């Protein structure tokens, strides 16, 4: 298990150097989006409109936080189940998205788009929202404010801990790891 530090956004070469099972600390800017925001981005693209942020080299975090208490950047902030975004993900990857942070399985079409574009699917630890919030330095809603917790937020993160689940070669840690510990 290799430990790596990565700055976001990053390029395809950086993504291709990450491998299934790597423990990675992300620092830089990432964007949150979950079900409702993905649906809106998808519709915007279908109508020929642009996305609310420059997606090139970016990482999307599938997360809807709990409200922040006064003086804090954010509330509890752990990953949501990624498969609900599977329908929308391949087109975002084809537009330059280089990473997603979530939890749980992905569709085959997502794995193929990850390989085709040289991207990474990271898992953060599900249900560790209080712990993960400590790696988020600031949070700002940049689009779809009316969606509440589902709005798109720009997050500044420092050493945000994730694990590479699907790498640019299409290896899948969920499949491999289970094999290793099945009795």
């Amino acid at each position: 298990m290799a430990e790596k530090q990565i700055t976001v956004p990053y390029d395809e070469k950086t993504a291709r150097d990450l491998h299934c099972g790597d423990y990675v600390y992300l620092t830089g800017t990432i964007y949150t989006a979950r079900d409702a925001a993905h649906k809106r981005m998808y519709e915007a693209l279908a109508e020929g409109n642009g996305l609310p942020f420059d997606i090139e080299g970016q990482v999307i975090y599938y997360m809807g936080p709990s409200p922040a208490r006064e003086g804090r950047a954010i509330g509890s902030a752990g990953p949501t189940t990624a498969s609900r975004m599977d329908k929308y993900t391949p087109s975002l990857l084809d537009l330059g998205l280089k990473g997603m942070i979530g939890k749980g399985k992905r569709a085959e079409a997502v794995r193929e788009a990850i390989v085709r574009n040289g991207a990474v699917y990271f898992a953060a630890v599900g249900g560790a929202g209080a712990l993960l919030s400590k790696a988020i330095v600031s949070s700002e809603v940049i689009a779809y404010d009316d969606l509440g917790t589902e709005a798109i937020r720009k997050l500044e993160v420092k050493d945000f801990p994730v694990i590479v689940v699907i790498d640019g070669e299409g290896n899948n840690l969920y499949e491999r790891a289970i094999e290793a510990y099945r009795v």
Partner: protein
Amino acid sequence: MRIIRVEEIVRNIKEMCIEANHYLTEDMKLALKEAEKKEKSPLGKQILHQLEDNLQIAAQDMIPICQDTGMAVIFMEIGQDVHVEGGLLTDAVNEGVRQGYREGYLRKSVVADPVLRENTKDNTPAVIHYDIVEGEQIRITVAPKGFGSENMSRVFMLKPADGVEGIKNAVLEAVREAGPNACPPVVVGVGIGGTFEKCALLAKKALTRPVGERSKLPYVREMEEELLEKINQSGIGPGGLGGSTTALAVNINTYPTHIAGLPVAVNMCCHVNRHCVRVL
């Protein structure tokens, strides 16, 4: 007859929503600690350790344990010699949830209509289960339920001939398919018997039983123990990233059923198995 004012119910439910989302019960904390000691995968051990750290941070800094602070599932066991005064009981329960989610900085995750999907912005309505029992008290259980694991839950309408083997296969299938999605290590609530809806309710209620407490029925206890062992041999592990801790407990509840049926419900719950009980 004893009179209980709705204001008392509102206040308690408000406090319980906040408490349940920031502190797990002692049995859950102990189970995580024990699991960390026994876990075979180094990464799995690390994840379990992070989950314990997460609980500490949540309690110290008042940050919800998980950002999915759930849909509020509330069991109201009402003594039949209690009279509720001052308004409608259901309104009081929902008002408690509204205040708890607002004042406790909890996430509002409820949409008013399952298809139109507009957020109600106060996490109401709750899902409330009323039960009339003896006595002159009200026993309230607040169990906020996250949907990562709820989405992986299943109902199986088995045939009587499927028997114990059929039940075990159903539970194992549900856990296997849930894999990493349900945020393992999970607690598996199982309901056997009743009708279609009754077995689901039994499974939900089973999640509120302490994880270290086994069924009093010998054959059920055996099934709970055997299923836990088999689930932990699946390899899924903490976070689904491989390991020997996939579940912390299998809790099974049973109920009489029809001569033609064997309903089985499997309600998956993540390691943030939240519930808070008070007796008024």
